């Protein structure tokens, strides 16, 4: 199968749609025309795009948790609590892992078990099984916008049901919800699936309904160098824009070095706008998402609060449009609603205290921005070259060639040849470049930075550093120093 970056023909789209809706009985509940009308009747403050754009305008950082349980009543109760007690600005509905794999039968079992035990046996909310009506109960019970957050390679049916259900933001993308979330799903397939999702969002847009799309920024969440996640995010933005998507939030997972993290958020927006313009998508609005540390967390809750605070700090100082919040239970398991609210409140306090503070651009920050810019452009330009002008084809070929490569990812379509590690100040650099198309200048920059750490630690730059870095934050450090 070959996938081209072309706006899907409406006829093709509607034909495909029939099959998609047959994936599970609830598909039949979806009536596009009626759904458009439903959206148009939503109060303005329940529309994600409105909240994001006004936050961007006012230089504010909004806060959003992750949350999803198996039973609708409990899910609604949870979200209400996170709004009221946790002071969340935006809400999520995190989808369970069976639904993410389109295993709706398994999800049904999970619902049953959960009903019997009275507690959630699923790690998220199985929206497809519940269908449009129950989704709308969620939307109607809450006064703020709700986003679908998941990790689904083929999210066509999920998108149909949740968007008809009144959700106004949909996370994911053909790369970001494949390579970190799947083992053997071909990229051309997921890019195609997500063209469908984006086309659906584009279609809603053409009917006057504003829906936001958010590629999943953090990927594997673990030592992902900014240029890697930026490249993926920008490609997904371009693919979405081609399908008519007008509102895109691009995400980035905190690495922990403040300067690098701020530079990453600033450059992400600049680069995305640069490429969108260059490719002829003039009217796409880009907002940014900062994810608090996505790798392994400390088990101790007091220490987890510190990691959460540090994430909130970087989010506030980078003026990201929103921050996705972790909880003190992160290392242990899906949080209770109290723990979830605790993470939100810590974040809220930091965001508020830093709201009016400004960190100046410094020389180091300029250097980081420049490096991230150069790396991202070198990757993206090579992708386009490989695709002979087509971003979709280019992406498939670039992954095959290791030009795009995500560290620690489970997918067999990922080369897995690059190796990241922290430098002596905790910024994430490359130990191995794999086949990344970086210039000599860039490579030397990374090598020097890592050599500096090697000298301080009196050891070779190598895999043991990577392992130490993977554990570092959970063990109370940023840089994984030898013991």
């Amino acid at each position, binding site marked *: 199968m070959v996938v081209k970056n072309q706006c899907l023909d409406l006829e093709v789209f509607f034909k495909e749609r029939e099959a998609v809706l047959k994936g599970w009985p609830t598909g039949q509940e979806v009536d596009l025309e009626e759904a458009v009308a439903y959206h148009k009747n939503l109060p303005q403050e329940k529309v994600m795009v409105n909240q994001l754009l006004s936050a961007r305008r006012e230089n504010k950082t909004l806060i959003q948790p992750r949350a999803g349980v198996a039973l609708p009543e409990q899910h609604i109760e949870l979200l209400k609590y996170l709004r009221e007690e946790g002071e969340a600005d935006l809400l999520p509905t995190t989808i369970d892992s069976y639904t993410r794999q389109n295993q709706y039968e398994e999800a049904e079992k999970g619902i049953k078990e959960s009903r019997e035990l009275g507690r959630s046996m699923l790690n998220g909310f199985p929206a497809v099984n519940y269908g449009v009506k129950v989704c709308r109960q969620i939307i109607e019970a809450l006064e703020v916008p709700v986003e679908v957050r998941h990790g689904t390679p083929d999210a066509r049916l999920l998108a149909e049901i949740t968007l008809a259900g009144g959700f106004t933001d949909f996370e994911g993308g053909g790369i970001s919800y494949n390579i*970190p979330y799947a083992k053997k799903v071909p990229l051309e397939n997921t890019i195609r699936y997500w063209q469908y999702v984006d086309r659906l969002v584009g279609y809603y847009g053409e009917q006057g309904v504003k829906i936001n799309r958010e590629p999943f920024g953090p990927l594997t969440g673990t030592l992902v160098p900014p240029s890697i996640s930026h490249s993926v995010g920008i490609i997904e933005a371009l693919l979405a824009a081609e399908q008519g998507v007008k509102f895109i939030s691009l995400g980035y997972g905190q690495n922990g070095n403040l300067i690098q993290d701020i530079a990453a958020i600033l450059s992400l927006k600049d680069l995305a706008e640069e490429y969108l313009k260059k490719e002829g998508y003039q009217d796409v609005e880009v907002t940014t998402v900062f994810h608090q540390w996505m790798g392994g967390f400390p088990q101790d809750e007091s220490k987890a609060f510190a990691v959460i605070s540090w994430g909130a700090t970087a989010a506030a100082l980078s003026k990201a449009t929103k921050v996705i919040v972790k909880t003190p239970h992160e290392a242990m*398991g899906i949080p209770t609603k109290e723990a979830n609210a605790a993470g939100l409140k810590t974040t809220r306090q930091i965001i508020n205290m830093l709201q009016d503070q400004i960190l100046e651009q410094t020389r180091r920050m300029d250097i980081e921005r420049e490096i991230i810019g150069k790396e991202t452009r070198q990757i993206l330009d090579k992708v386009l070259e490989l695709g002979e002008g087509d971003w979709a084809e280019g992406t498939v070929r670039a992954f095959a060639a290791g030009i795009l490569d995500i560290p620690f990812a*489970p997918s067999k379509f990922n080369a897995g040849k690059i190796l990241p590690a922290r430098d002596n100040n905790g910024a994430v650099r490359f130990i191995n470049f794999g086949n990344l198309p970086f210039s000599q200048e860039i490579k030397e920059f990374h090598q020097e930075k890592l050599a500096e750490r090697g000298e301080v630690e009196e050891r070779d730059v190598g895999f043991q550093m990577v392992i130490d870095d993977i554990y570092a934050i959970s063990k109370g450090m940023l840089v994984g120093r030898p013991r």
Partner: protein
Amino acid sequence: MTAKPIVVLGVIGADVHAIGNQILEHALNDAGFKVVNIGVMASQKEFVNAAIETGADAIWVSSLYGHGEMDCRGLREKCQEAGIGDILIYVGGNLVIGKQDWENTKKLFLNMGYDRAYPPGTLPETAIKDLKEDLQKRGKSRWNWPS
């Protein structure tokens, strides 16, 4: 020197958490084991087949994403049916949903037939030490472990 003991390693169910799996592979290798890593999203059947095909001494099952309780049930029985009923099976990760009392969780998995169960954040060293002891008890003390 005799042949290395063989461990089948994988992440069960629809679980894609790959980092711990990669580190465990590395650590087991370093400790002198032969690792057969079937990776993430592995079904019970894949674990059993890999164990039979390679004549494995142990199976290490990871479950991180919270569905461990549903996914892990029945693996011991599948092994018994396949004629490798007494193979060592360890399980570790974030086995259940949420922050729960570990002693209960441990009991749950031991009752399912797992030989050992490890709480979140277990370091590879800990379990490798146990594995060596368990293998030794089973009369496999002749292996020369790298020191």
